[in-house]
């Protein structure tokens, strides 16, 4: 009886139907099954006249509740009507009424949603209010009232129910249209002189098409459930053969002939189930979700091979690191990271990468997006996605393996001793890396309480101090603020404060400035440099920007397509790049661009620079 529209339907908006979604649906076994079931029901409905040997209301009074035989293949009901004929004609009425319901809902919801979303204004306000009214009505009670008013007709109740279901389409269309309305191509169309109607039908309709199909599948299912529910209560139109009426008839005779209940239940269950599955299949097809199957044992594929050579990490390992390398803070040796594919192969994103970082040293890893630099960094942090596999090599931290040479995953147990405490992380996108639901203070204090095992009050003192250290002018205000209340630059400072809060030995900064305004970028880089000098920590700086590297790093490693193409002293590499890729990268970067650091006048400290950053934030906080 659920009148629920799955939440992710709404999230589906904005998806454009890509090539051959139909093929994808049919490839999905669930999708195929649902299409087959629905087609079967449709065939029953369309060919009812041919398939049914009897009129659905024809009663053979001498042959009631008989089991199936050659004449009545599914037997007869309590008044001698042919069950098969009623089932077939029931399919027609039931499907038609479900379509009628969905049709009414679309006819009302779609245009009003289009108009409300496209033009907004008063129409939007009024229709939203109406939607609220409709959504506050419990369906069955309204249908009971409608039935009392206009009589027990399948069609009228389905029209009424369609009206009740219209808000689903309205909301769907409205949000979709709103999100598309200001997109460039719609603007372009407008500039090109297309009328609103043309834009609506040509551009926007294509956007809402897919979610509407999904929604329709869901609504048809709900309509069938509601309708058979009413008929089950004996509140339907008994003279029309529908599955619900048959259900009622079966329930009346449950003690004499329970099989009468089986057919309509099966028909209803299969049809609604198929509609639900179809909706899911369409959604999957559109989301392009490729599911990764677990490798089958013994199959001769790259995955199977991997399984024989590498295995899950154990809590303690016997393997010891190569002697003479213990002094390196981090040492990555011949690291390979891959993702299992559906066909049994493994797609490598990092391949044979080796480097090391010592205490107090700053290593830059440079490369374009997709070069595997972030994957390498995440391997050290142990924050690779669940399905990633270490296919080769090892990682050691402070003389201990975090990934031993035979392991296919990063040992979370071993890394949790280091993470937060000794290795910390500065992310790329400041806003999305703070939980919007908690205050900044909370997000600074909790890790310290957990990792350093200090009291909350102490952690609070430290947090305020840290905020001050990273150059935030009003630590208390920021401490109490929620992430959305501060600017991007400030959020990045907060994240840096978080990264150093537990006095780590190694900081991994993943493009720490990319998401920031140009003016703020320099401030943040200065801050990192200051802190690194002051705390003497090792830093791995992942970036695509040679300017940043030149500014901060002692050594640099250049990556391309998952491989390390060149590494060495930063001055050496910058002055005298050996690999052609490095040369190309350097060349493109320097073309007409000034190094970032030039924006900051020499001698200006991080704290001073932060003041500028804070001034804009202050206004926000004051509001």
């Amino acid at each position, binding site marked *: *009886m*659920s*009148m*629920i*529209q*799955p*939440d992710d339907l709404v999230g589906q908006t904005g998806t454009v139907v890509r090539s051959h979604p139909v093929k994808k649906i049919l490839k999905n076994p669930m999708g195929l099954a649902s299409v087959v079931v629905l087609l079967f029901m449709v065939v029953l409905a369309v060919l009812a006249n041919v398939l049914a040997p009897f009129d659905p209301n024809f009663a053979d009074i001498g042959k009631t509740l008989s089991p199936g035989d050659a004449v009545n293949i599914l037997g007869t009901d309590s008044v001698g009507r042919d069950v098969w004929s009623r089932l077939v004609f029931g399919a027609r009425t039931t499907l038609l009424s479900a379509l009628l319901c969905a049709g009414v809902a679309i006819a009302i919801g779609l245009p009003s949603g289009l108009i409300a979303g496209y033009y907004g204004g008063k129409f939007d306000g009024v229709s939203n*209010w109406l939607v*609220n*009214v409709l*959504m*506050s*009505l*419990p*369906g*069955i*009670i309204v249908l*009971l*009232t*409608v039935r*009392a*008013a206009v009589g027990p007709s399948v069609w009228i109740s389905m029209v009424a129910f369609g009206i009740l279901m219209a808000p689903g389409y309205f909301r769907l269309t409205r949000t979709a249209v709103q999100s598309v309305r200001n997109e460039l191509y719609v603007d372009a169309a407008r500039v090109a002189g297309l009328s609103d109607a043309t834009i609506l039908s040509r551009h926007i309709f294509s956007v809402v098409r897919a979610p509407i199909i999904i929604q329709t599948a869901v609504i048809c*299912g709900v309509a069938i*459930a509601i309708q058979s*529910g009413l008929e*089950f*209560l004996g*509140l339907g139109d008994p003279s029309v053969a529908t599955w619900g009426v048959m*259900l009622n008839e079966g329930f009346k005779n449950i003690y004499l002939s329970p099989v009468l209940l089986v057919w309509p*239940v099966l028909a*209803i*269950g*299969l049809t*609604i*189930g198929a509609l*639900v*599955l179809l909706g*899911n299949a369409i959604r999957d097809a559109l989301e392009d979700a490729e599911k990764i199957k677990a490798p089958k044992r013994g199959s001769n594929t790259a995955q199977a091979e991997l399984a024989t050579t590498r295995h899950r990490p154990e809590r303690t390992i016997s393997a010891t690191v190569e002697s003479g390398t213990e002094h390196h803070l981090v040492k990555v040796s011949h690291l390979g990271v891959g993702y299992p594919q559906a066909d049994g192969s493994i797609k490598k994103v990092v391949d044979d990468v080796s480097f090391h970082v010592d205490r107090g040293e700053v290593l830059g890893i440079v490369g374009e997006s997709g070069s595997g630099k972030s994957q390498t960094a995440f391997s050290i*942090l142990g*924050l690779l996605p669940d399905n990633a596999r270490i296919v080769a090599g090892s990682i050691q931290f402070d003389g201990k393996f975090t990934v031993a040479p035979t392991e296919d995953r990063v040992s979370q147990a071993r890394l*949790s001793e280091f*993470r*937060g*405490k000794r290795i*910390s*992380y500065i*992310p790329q996108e400041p806003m*999305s*890396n*703070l*939980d*919007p*639901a908690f205050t900044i203070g909370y*997000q600074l204090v*909790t*890790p310290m309480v*957990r*990792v350093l095992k200090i009291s909350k009050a102490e952690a609070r003192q430290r947090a305020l101090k840290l905020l001050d250290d990273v150059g935030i002018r009003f630590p208390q205000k920021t401490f109490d603020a929620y992430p*959305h209340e501060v600017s991007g630059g400030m959020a990045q400072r907060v994240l840096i404060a978080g990264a150093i809060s*537990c006095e780590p030995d190694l900081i991994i900064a993943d493009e720490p400035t990319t998401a920031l305004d140009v003016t703020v970028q320099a401030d943040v880089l200065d801050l990192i440099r200051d802190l690194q000098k002051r705390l003497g920590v090792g830093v791995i700086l992942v970036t695509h920007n040679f300017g940043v590297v030149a500014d901060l790093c002692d050594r640099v490693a250049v990556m391309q397509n998952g491989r390390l193409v060149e590494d060495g002293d930063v001055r050496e590499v910058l002055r005298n790049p050996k690999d052609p890729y490095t040369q190309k990268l350097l060349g493109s970067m320097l073309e007409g661009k000034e190094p970032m650091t030039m924006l900051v006048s020499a001698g200006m400290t991080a704290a001073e620079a932060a003041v500028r950053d804070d001034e804009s934030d202050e206004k926000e906080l004051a509001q």
Partner: protein
Amino acid sequence: MVSFILKRIVSGISVLVAISFFTYCLLYFSSTNIARNILGEFASQEQVAAKEVELGLDRPLLVRFFEWAGQAVQGNFGASWFNSEPVIGAITTRLPITLTLVVVAMLCITIVATLLGMAAAIKRGWIDRLVQGAAVLGDAIPDFVLGIVLVAVFAINLHFFPATSSISPDAGMNAWVASMTLPVIALLINGVASVAQQVRSAVIKQMERDYVRTLRSRGIPEWEILFKHVLRSAAPAALTVLSLKFVGMLGGVVIIEQIFALPGMGALAVQSTSMGDIPLVMGVVLYTVVIVIIVNLLVDLINGWLNPKVRVS
């Protein structure tokens, strides 16, 4: 905050007024036979005519509506035309039953579906497939069909539970528990499955968020990330589904109450609408809408509490 609530109350009242009027109009067109139905088959035409005048059925729609509304505003919802039971009394004696059913079912759904959905999102594997499969099955089998099966198996065949309710004012806790168990199960099964699926996708969505990775990098234990951060961010999506489920359940409970012969609001709704007992129908509709409005308001307030961003705007 206060202005937000006030705003919502005002809009709730406007919805209430609109629905009252709409329902009254619908009932107006169905009220042709009421006097005859009240008086029974042996009443004479004169008696019927007299009754129509007594009930005001001879007066125009708007006059009747405003008369009713005027009384209703003062808290006087009248009495049933058929058995003279005051509308307020009729609803208050039946409400505990329906609310118990719905609230308990919702609580179970919330707890079980959250745990299942999270397990499916995190563990994946068989539990994920189970949840996905159950969700389809739950959607495919209407709850009343499940109710029939439960009665047939657990009450008629196994005698574990009474087939129909044994609830009465002097009945003890045992009677309540015995009477409510099967209907609650019938109500919650499909809800658990579909809500678990929603929780699952919301949790998966949240698990992929950047801040989760950052929290991990800070050394926050996995359970804390899950229950404190991910669940909280996934909650608004789940809450919206739950509130829709709640509204749906107020309708679904009508059929369930019929199957188990529970004297709740659903039975009252079927009776009053089929007889055209206007005061009672209006009472039932208003009660339902008020509950829906309150639930929606609560959901908004909880969402605001969960998500400070919403709170500000």
